[in-house]
């Protein structure tokens, strides 16, 4: 039976296979020629296939092969003729391009055929071998004629062989599989490692990914592909804090087989034991052989708790209208009639207008007005309506579905920011963006948000139509990457931003996806480094409206500080570095399972609190601060940060135990000094002292587990704030929720941004003095 397969051709793959690289100045010419040729030749590129099952006559010593499946795929003779035509008129580019397109179509068709055959063979309780191609493995090229003849015995195939065993028409393939009941499962169809053409431009290698409790997955990738790039592309949650620069040592994975050679650099970042077990750094490995790699799932603690902010005036309210009475003699529209009735003009969303158009005259209905200006929805009966608040953190992503009528959190979705495989901090992600033209970073975050929204809607059974708004906060870089705005200029002085105002965009335009039809509001920020997340945090805590003097700190990669004192509000971002997020610390890690979250000196022995209660694998920020405080209290480290004896302090027992190195302590000193100095500069700016402060708001996941005593001991936070601290959780998310609930939130945020002065610390002399002063313990 002749099988008609799908005509699939991947443009990027095809161009790449003929060495049309994306960085070539002529790439746009290649692309347009590709489109032109596809358009012109679609009819003659249709792949057809045949397969028959027959007795094994060619493969020696293999009693496991009960049957041989002989396959042939061809695009027919027209493609050959067309290529010939191009060459005859000396259009070599088009000729070669068409040839490459045909190859790619064949490649995709053969993958589709494999699935068909696989299912067929499974129905007969048999398994399938890898693809066996005459002339490329143990099977001699002469077997080509046997394969073809076997098919021809049952099918009318217009394929012939030349005297040199070449298929005619040329854009054809003939190969076979072994099938048998006692064969073991192989998740691979085509395996290039069996082929002798080592320099083949199409050569692929197979990467098999093993995960506990999951079926192995196999990906075919280009020979020479970088392992980190591969893992990123297939969406594996691997850590790559330095974005593949080869410096952080966090993209450690175990290669089950074979044993890969290890570079000198890798040796410095992985222990001998680990090397013995097969660990490598993914970013160092360019693959030239099939591998099996094991990925360990990591459970992260993601902070998403927040209190629903107090709302002074509701953003939305229902107004009942007892039907519209239109007189034939006047020319008023329905909207005019409503305006007349309510004594006020309103803007309508398109969906509200659509619903209005479906109402009959005189029928009573309810309109949902927002900010006393807009009509967001229109229904026969008032009912529940919802909003979604989103916090895009550098490390984590949290979405909250809010019942706007009852001011309740329905459900929260949280996950790791999938961009982490492109770097742990904003700078390394910007670095990736500036070196790549693809939109990977936008795509992965938008996809995660879409997944989150779908899950929230499903879980709470909310109709997409009933979502009125989506409010998004994040630091400026996260927001730009999410919106597809190039963040590069944020990474170097003078830290130029493209826009800091609020961006309102339709969901469909932003996501190119019609899941929701409402608007997405990307909330405004204050500066390149005091983003919407901080502004939103202040909005949530109502810092600006409070009597007295208050400090707001969000410690992450950047320590963002806002001080409201003596009638002023000032803010600054300190480049604390990612030490508190576990980067740059030898045994540092994020708040994942296995991280030491806190430590206590308990009558002479140290009690560790490990996330997940298992074996300690590393130290996260709050644990690091506790351990540092203990070291200082025990006199293991002097006030300059020097380890009294030797170069390291063991934290856990054993040869491969966790150790705090001198270099780690230095990193911590730099980080804490930056924050301490930032606080001092802000206090001076407002002419305020620590004693005059009425309270400290500690935001973010880090603040959650921070032991204030330890933080004060190491000099991160000024003494005197110990009993005045309030942990506010994910205040950024809370702020986005307040935006959804509060009347005139847009205006309030604008004023808040306007009323908060930003102080650039990177060129502030006073900051440097305080920074140096704050370095000691």
């Amino acid at each position: 039976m002749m099988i008609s397969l799908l005509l699939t051709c991947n443009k990027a793959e095809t161009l790449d296979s003929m060495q049309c690289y994306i960085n070539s100045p002529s790439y746009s010419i290649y692309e347009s020629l590709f489109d032109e040729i596809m358009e012109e030749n679609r009819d003659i590129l249709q792949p057809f296939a045949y397969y028959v099952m027959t007795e094994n006559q060619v493969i020696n010593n293999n009693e496991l092969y009960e049957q041989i499946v002989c396959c042939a795929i061809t695009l027919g003779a027209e493609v050959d003729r067309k290529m010939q035509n191009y060459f005859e008129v000396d259009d070599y580019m088009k000729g070669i391009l068409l040839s490459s397109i045909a190859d790619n179509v064949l490649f995709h068709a053969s993958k589709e055929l494999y699935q068909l055959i696989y299912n067929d063979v499974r129905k007969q309780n048999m398994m399938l071998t890898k693809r066996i191609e005459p002339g490329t493995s143990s099977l001699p090229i002469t077997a080509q004629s046997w394969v073809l003849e076997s098919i021809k015995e049952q099918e009318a195939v217009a394929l012939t062989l030349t005297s040199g065993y070449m298929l005619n028409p040329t854009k054809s393939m003939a190969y076979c599989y072994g099938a048998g009941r006692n064969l073991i499962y192989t998740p691979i169809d085509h395996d290039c490692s069996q082929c002798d053409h080592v320099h083949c431009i199409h050569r692929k290698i197979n990467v098999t990914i093993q995960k506990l409790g999951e079926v192995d997955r196999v990906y075919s990738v280009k020979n020479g592909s970088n392992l980190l790039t591969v893992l990123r592309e297939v969406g594996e949650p691997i850590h790559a804090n330095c974005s593949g620069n080869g410096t952080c040592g966090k993209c450690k994975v175990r290669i089950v087989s074979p044993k890969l050679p290890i570079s000198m650099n890798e040796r410095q970042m992985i222990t001998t034991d680990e090397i013995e077990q097969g660990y490598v750094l993914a970013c160092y490995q360019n693959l030239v052989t099939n591998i099996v790699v094991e990925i360990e799932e990591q459970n992260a603690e993601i902070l998403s708790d927040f209190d629903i902010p107090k709302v002074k005036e509701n953003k939305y309210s229902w107004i009942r209208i007892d039907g519209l009475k239109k007189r034939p003699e006047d020319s008023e529209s329905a909207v005019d009639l409503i305006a007349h009735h309510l004594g006020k003009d309103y803007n309508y969303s398109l969906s509200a207008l659509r619903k209005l158009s479906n109402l009959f005259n005189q029928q009573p209905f309810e309109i949902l007005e927002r900010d006393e200006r807009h009509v967001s929805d229109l229904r026969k009966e008032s009912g529940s309506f919802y909003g979604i608040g989103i916090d895009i953190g550098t490390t984590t992503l949290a979405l909250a579905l809010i019942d706007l009528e009852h001011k309740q959190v329905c459900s929260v979705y949280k996950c790791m920011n999938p961009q982490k495989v492109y770097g742990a901090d904003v700078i390394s992600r910007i670095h990736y963006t500036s070196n790549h033209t693809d939109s990977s970073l936008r795509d992965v975050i938008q996809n995660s948000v879409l997944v989150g929204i779908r899950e929230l809607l499903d879980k709470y059974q909310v109709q997409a139509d009933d979502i009125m708004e989506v409010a998004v906060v994040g630091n400026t870089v996260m927001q730009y990457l999410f919106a597809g705005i190039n963040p590069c200029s944020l990474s170097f002085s003078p830290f130029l931003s493209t826009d800091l105002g609020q961006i309102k965009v339709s969901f469909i335009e932003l996501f190119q996806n019609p899941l929701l039809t409402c608007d997405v509001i990307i909330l405004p920020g204050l500066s390149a480094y005091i983003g919407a997340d901080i502004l939103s945090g202040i909005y949530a805590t109502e810092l600006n409206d409070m009597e007295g003097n208050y400090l707001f700190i969000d410690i992450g990669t950047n320590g963002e500080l806002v001080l409201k004192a003596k009638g002023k509000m000032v803010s600054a971002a300190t480049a604390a570095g990612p030490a508190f997020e576990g980067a740059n610390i030898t045994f540092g890690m994020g708040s994942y399972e296995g991280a030491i979250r806190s430590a206590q000196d308990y009558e002479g022995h140290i009690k560790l609190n490990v996330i997940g209660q298992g074996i300690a694998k590393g130290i996260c920020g709050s644990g690091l601060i506790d351990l540092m405080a203990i070291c200082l209290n025990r006199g293991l480290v002097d006030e300059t940060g020097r380890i009294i004896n030797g170069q390291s302090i063991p934290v856990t027992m054993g040869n491969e135990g966790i150790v705090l190195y001198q270099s780690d302590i230095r990193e911590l000193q730099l980080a804490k000094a930056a924050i301490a100095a930032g606080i001092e500069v802000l206090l001076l700016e407002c002419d305020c002292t620590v004693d005059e402060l009425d309270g400290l708001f500690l935001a973010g996941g880090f603040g959650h587990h921070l032991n204030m005593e330890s933080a004060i001991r190491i000099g991160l936070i000024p003494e005197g704030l110990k009993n005045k601290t309030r942990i506010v959780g994910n205040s950024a998310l809370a702020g986005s929720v307040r935006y959804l609930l509060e009347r005139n939130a847009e205006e309030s945020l604008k004023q808040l941004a306007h009323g908060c002065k930003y102080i650039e610390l990177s060129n502030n002399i006073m900051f440097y003095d305080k920074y140096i002063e704050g370095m000691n313990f």
Partner: protein
Amino acid sequence: MILQEISYFFKHGQSEKVRELTLRGMAEGVMPSDIVNVLTSYMTELGIKFKNNEIFVPEVLIVARAFNAAIEVLEPIMEPSKVYTRGTVIIGTVEGDLHDIGKNLVKMMLKGNGFHVVDLGVDVKPETFVQAVITHNAQVLAMSALLTTTMIKIKETIDLLVKRGIRQQVYVLIGGAPVTTNYAKEVRADAYARDAGSVSELLIKRGFSKKVL
């Protein structure tokens, strides 16, 4: 200067511009051979860059499109012998072999470098090759084979040249995936070309120089 403009757009593969400028050049009385010289000298340069892995095939192909755009304008005006002054090359893929991409690339490079190329296509019998050499009084015979199973036809063709007594009159150049320098020696070919870029350079080195016009 129009030649400089042609050269500029030629190097950027802008075939429409090159066609337009060539037509304008003709109208303004520029010598066609001057234009051909501009084109061929850059094609030679390109061949070397390609051989040295400085550029990739598609970049050569894009320029070749522009080359053809100019030649289409020039050919009706110039005698072929003035466009292609380096000599005649017979080219083809051997019997039993249908691969023609590599052969076509070689053909393109040769034409771009000022050779007159007679393409016999694919699946070419030894007899056909030999006849073509005689008919066109060719200086070079270039054969390509992509399979180990078809490579033997190269030897058969050369043996036939010997038998007819014309082996010395023609320079035999061979190429293709399974072909090597050693194989070239074995079958008494004159040279093996590793890729399309090295073919012209190789021939020019062997004395196939430009005739003075």
